[in-house]
């Protein structure tokens, strides 16, 4: 059995963040990093860009090639962790290796959701799309089978980025979205409509309120899908982009508490001493609600990993809470949203909107008790971060509401304390 001071499971944002967090506090302690995938730390969101040809393989690196050497991290890539034994302070790998640790970070991420009752879902030509491996496989399949048409099931972020990549490769794409509109979770109706318009102008066919009933096969390979109403859509490629779920297989039966994900406290520690969780697998503090929620987005993953790393190395850093937010540019139309974008009626939310259909500029702000809790910007997204900062910093914006909607809205209108803090480079929270 080998053993290490710090053991990190996962080689994405949270894992890298953890390495950087540990090294900020403990420059020398031994770190071992385990990951199922064999690639050097890469930018997972870039897989659609890779497929779309916007970045090459070299461009996938999230950190320089010598990053782990520089950080004095022992990497074990292609090794899948199988079981955590907190009592023994060991992790058993799928290949039987047992690794002892003093501090453990579980950051093995999520796993794609596959529809349970979709006939043909396991046929060649049907893919989920969350890893570099998926991107390679899809690319090879398209080339090998000369695919011209594709169906993307799911109008969320992964789905739409897949659409963009496939379109860029010259495929004709149809999107199936079960909800009445795309990006239903993060955007409101108006913003969804603007994006749907952008998709349409790029030649993408969008079908809402529907999904595939089955995958049609031809010679054992996917050849299209059939919708509940019997409509058939021909496609040599079907991408399942319904979403991801925290991958809890590793901790099953270990005594580490889980709900939707692994429960992590404000220091990203689990209920078990010495074990931390971060990233898509974790269920940690959410800023606005004060509850623990799983928010599988990159910035949260990194920050959680970083803070976990600091705390694992003996530091004391508190996670301020994650905020759901997304930036997505579809067919040239930029959209940034954060927090609550479609508040329920009658619960005291104040909504300010400004829409210019001609320029496709849209601003929507959601406030409660004179504090911003969410926003959507479409088109002119510049300086969105100021608004994000106001949400994160819980800055009272009483009297500023109208100014917030102005396109030249800036720091100068903000309360002096907040303004001075951020312009001093101290960030929102210091």
């Amino acid at each position, binding site marked *: 059995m080998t053993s290490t001071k710090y053991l990190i499971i996962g080689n994405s*944002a949270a894992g890298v*963040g953890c390495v950087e967090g540990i090294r*900020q506090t403990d420059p020398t302690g031994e770190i071992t990093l385990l990951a199922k995938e064999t690639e050097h730390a890469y*930018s*997972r*969101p*870039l897989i659609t*860009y890779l497929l779309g040809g*916007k*970045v090459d393989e070299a*461009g996938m*690196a*999230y*950190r*320089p090639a010598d990053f782990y050497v520089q950080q004095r991290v022992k990497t074990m890539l292609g090794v899948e962790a199988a079981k955590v034994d907190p009592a023994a302070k060991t992790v058993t790998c799928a290949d039987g290796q047992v690794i002892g640790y003093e501090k453990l970070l579980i950051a093995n991420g999520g796993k794609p959701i596959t529809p349970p009752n979709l006939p043909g879902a396991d046929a060649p030509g049907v893919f989920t799309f969350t890893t570099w491996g998926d991107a390679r496989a899809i690319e090879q399949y398209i080339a090998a089978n000369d695919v011209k048409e594709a169906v993307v099931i799911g109008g969320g972020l992964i789905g739409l980025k897949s659409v963009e990549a496939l379109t860029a490769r010259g495929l004709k794409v149809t999107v199936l979205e079960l909800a009445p509109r795309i990006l239903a979770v993060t955007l409101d109706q108006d913003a969804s409509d603007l994006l749907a318009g952008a998709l349409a102008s790029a030649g993408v066919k969008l079908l809402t309120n529907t999904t595939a009933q089955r995958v049609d096969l031809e010679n054992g390979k996917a050849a299209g899908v059939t919708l509940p109403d019997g409509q058939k859509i021909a496609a040599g490629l079907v991408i399942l982009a319904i979403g991801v779920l925290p991958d809890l297989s590793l901790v099953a039966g270990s005594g580490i508490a889980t709900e939707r994900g692994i429960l992590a406290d404000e220091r990203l520690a689990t209920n078990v001493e010495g074990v931390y969780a971060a990233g898509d697998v974790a269920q940690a503090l959410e800023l606005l609600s004060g509850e623990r929620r799983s928010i599988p987005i*990159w*910035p949260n993953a*990194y*920050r959680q990993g*970083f803070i976990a790393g600091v705390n694992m190395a003996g530091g004391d850093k508190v996670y301020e809470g994650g905020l759901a*937010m*997304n*930036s*997505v*540019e579809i067919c040239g139309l*930029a959209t*940034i949203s*954060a927090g609550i974008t479609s508040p329920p009626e009658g619960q005291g939310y104040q909504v300010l909107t400004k829409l210019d259909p001609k320029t496709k500029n849209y601003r929507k702000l959601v406030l409660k008790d004179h504090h911003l809790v969410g926003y959507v910007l479409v088109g002119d*997204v*510049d*300086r*969105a*971060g*100021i608004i*994000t*900062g106001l949400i*994160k*910093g819980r800055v009272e914006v009483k009297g500023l509401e109208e100014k917030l909607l102005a396109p*030249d809205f*800036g*720091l*100068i*209108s903000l309360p002096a304390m907040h303004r001075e803090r*951020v*312009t*001093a*480079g*101290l*960030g*929102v929270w*210091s």
Partner: protein
Amino acid sequence: MKRIVAKEEYCMNCRLCEVYCLVSHSRSKDLIKAFRQERGEIVPRITVERLGPVSFAVQCRHCDEPACVEACMTGALHRDPATGEVTHDPQRCVGCWMCVMVCPTGAIRRDRNGHVAAKCDLCLETGTPACVANCPNEALVIEEDND
């Protein structure tokens, strides 16, 4: 670390910092050519905000724990722990605007031409930030921050 500090009591809204920032990041490095030929492609990485008589310039604050670096999914944004400088590598940037989404000062702009983020690089190539060098009232100064 060194930070560019804006003294709002002496900012007079001339916005020459924007002019010189743009030139400093132009291909030609020439005022007239930059404005004639490249305006629209490139944007200044500094913005003067004004409200009544008060104005000040904002550019990247090179935060201690930069939200943009945390949010950057490609690793294009990086904070040099030795100098504290937050750098941006346009070669690795894909223009996802995650940094735009989180920068609390709104200091990261979208470069319209390259479709990459554009932010203050302290004009490291030339040594002195163009905005500081050309601020006629020393409302922009470089201050050593000992934290």
